[in-house]
């Protein structure tokens, strides 16, 4: 365990991430509305030592009740449509919606009209668009930091 922690400390030193200048935070609730799991896998690594977005006050929270931003991946499927709206409606104001990845933006291999409602924009007002298939952790981090600055 101690070796593991020492290795992590060394890794963090080697990566030499810049220290945050900001003193604010943004709580994010992620909703997978029908993705291929690529955006989820990259979003997970945004919290890993190579990016460590928590140092900027960016964290994924367990409930939309605690969230400032709804981060939505995938095209919105017919089966996730209702759940996505429930999550959005549970958020306190002010709230922002970020569409993560090309599918969420409506420009990828999506599926059939009877199974997919469409892009996130077709269902919710979108404030931030993060293109990519999937967007790299760097691109996700960049977009979220711009959002925190714009608040």
């Amino acid at each position: 365990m101690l070796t593991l922690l020492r290795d992590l400390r060394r890794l963090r030193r080697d990566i030499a991430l810049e220290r945050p200048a900001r003193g604010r935070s943004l709580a994010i609730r992620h909703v997978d509305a029908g993705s291929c799991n690529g955006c989820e896998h990259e979003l997970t690594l945004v919290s890993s030592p190579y990016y460590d977005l928590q140092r900027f006050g960016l964290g994924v929270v367990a409930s939309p009740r605690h969230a400032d931003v709804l981060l939505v991946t995938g095209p919105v499927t017919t089966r996730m449509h209702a759940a996505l709206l429930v999550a959005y409606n549970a958020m306190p104001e002010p709230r922002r919606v970020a569409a993560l990845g090309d599918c969420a933006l409506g420009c990828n291999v999506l599926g059939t009209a009877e199974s997919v409602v469409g892009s996130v924009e077709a269902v919710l007002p979108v404030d931030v668009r993060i293109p990519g298939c999937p967007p790299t952790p760097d691109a996700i981090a960049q977009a979220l930091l711009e959002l925190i600055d714009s608040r």
Partner: protein
Amino acid sequence: MSAYRETVAAALDEGWRFAGLHASADGSCVRTLLARDGSVRLETVDVSEGSVPSLVDLAPAAGWDEREAHDLHGVGFAGHEPLRPLVDHDLDLAHWTVPVRGDDPYQVAVGPIHAGVIESGHFRFHVVGERILHVDARLFYKHRGLERAAEGATLEDGVAFASRACAACAVTNAVAYAHACEDALGLIPDPELARARTILLELERLWSHLNDIAAACAGVGLAAGNNGFAALTERGRRLNAALTGHRFLFGSVRVGGSALTLDEPAIRRARVEIDAIRVDSQRAWRELLFNASFQDRLPEIGIVTAADVERLGAVGPAARAAGVEEDVRAVSSRLAYDGFQPVVPRRAAGDVQARLEQRALELLQTYALLDDLLSRPVGPAAAEAGGAERPIGVGRVESPRGETSCIVERRGERVERLRLRTGSYANWPAVAYAAADNLLPDFPLINKSFELCYACVDR
């Protein structure tokens, strides 16, 4: 007993294994895929008066396939009672859950939206106190109709639908699709194409298995282990990007040829990095072995025995962790796995501990395979004429989660029907089975010890 059931029953007696079932695009017939070692066969039965005989009593692994064929193609299965909805979400709770009766049982509903960064899916736990009596998993929230959308596409373009079904299995699904198309077109990959695809498959397994160990650490709240293996996962993805320009290797598989070339400096750098990842991951794994509070959580929960594997049709690390030495890599004549031997853990208990150890063992195989496969540059390659042309082709590939099969029915050069049955699809019933009798707080860990995708199940 119908001729179809008799044929399938006889085949199962002869050592053939159920490997998938699907309805044709127009719902006029049902095809059952059977596999034995490296061979496959399809048994077809016409739909008569809206239904075909069910196979669930002969092969319980057919349960989900039959429910899916009913929901998506309207085929009834005589003898499959009750035929619960799988993809169809319109029916109420009583239709898709198993009734649980008694003095104290109550239900805990989780999802489709989960608390972390997790794919969407719903679990309905029937519990007494903290003890799980039964779990009903309701997936297909992410059903995008990708198989249907692929119909009519050229065989070449169809690969996009197979690979976009799931980022974590993108290479596996694309190679299984390419194999199916080439099987139908009477093509056989030349040795260079076989090697290129094998490299891609093992690169996918490398990051995926590292990610699975990170996920298990997250499942018990061991942040140091999670961070350590997440960092290694990141290095695996960066390696992918360095070799193919994409962190998930998208676009690196195509039908009939190779989309991968690697020159001498590229393979040299890759081998150095793979060796460094090997050293660091073995070191981090050793640390996990000596972490008593972590190890205490792992044994004797979420058990799937070898008999369960056979009955439920579980595949991949989940099957091997129970001592079942099945691995499609050992019988993949279209890939460069010559002499490959499946591994099983010494303590093949089929529990969370064994499944986690299985990943560590398979990583060692992957490092060695990649080191060997990358010992010389990868040049242009193609599939060559070598077999008979057929209207239906089958491809089977071992994904990080187990056997994935792809069936392509073609009309000329176009896809008439695409069926993708992934390792995750085969294993989900085992997850639900493994959870019963365990404590509810152990479910996240049991679930993560399988670490299945939802995306390539839902399609």
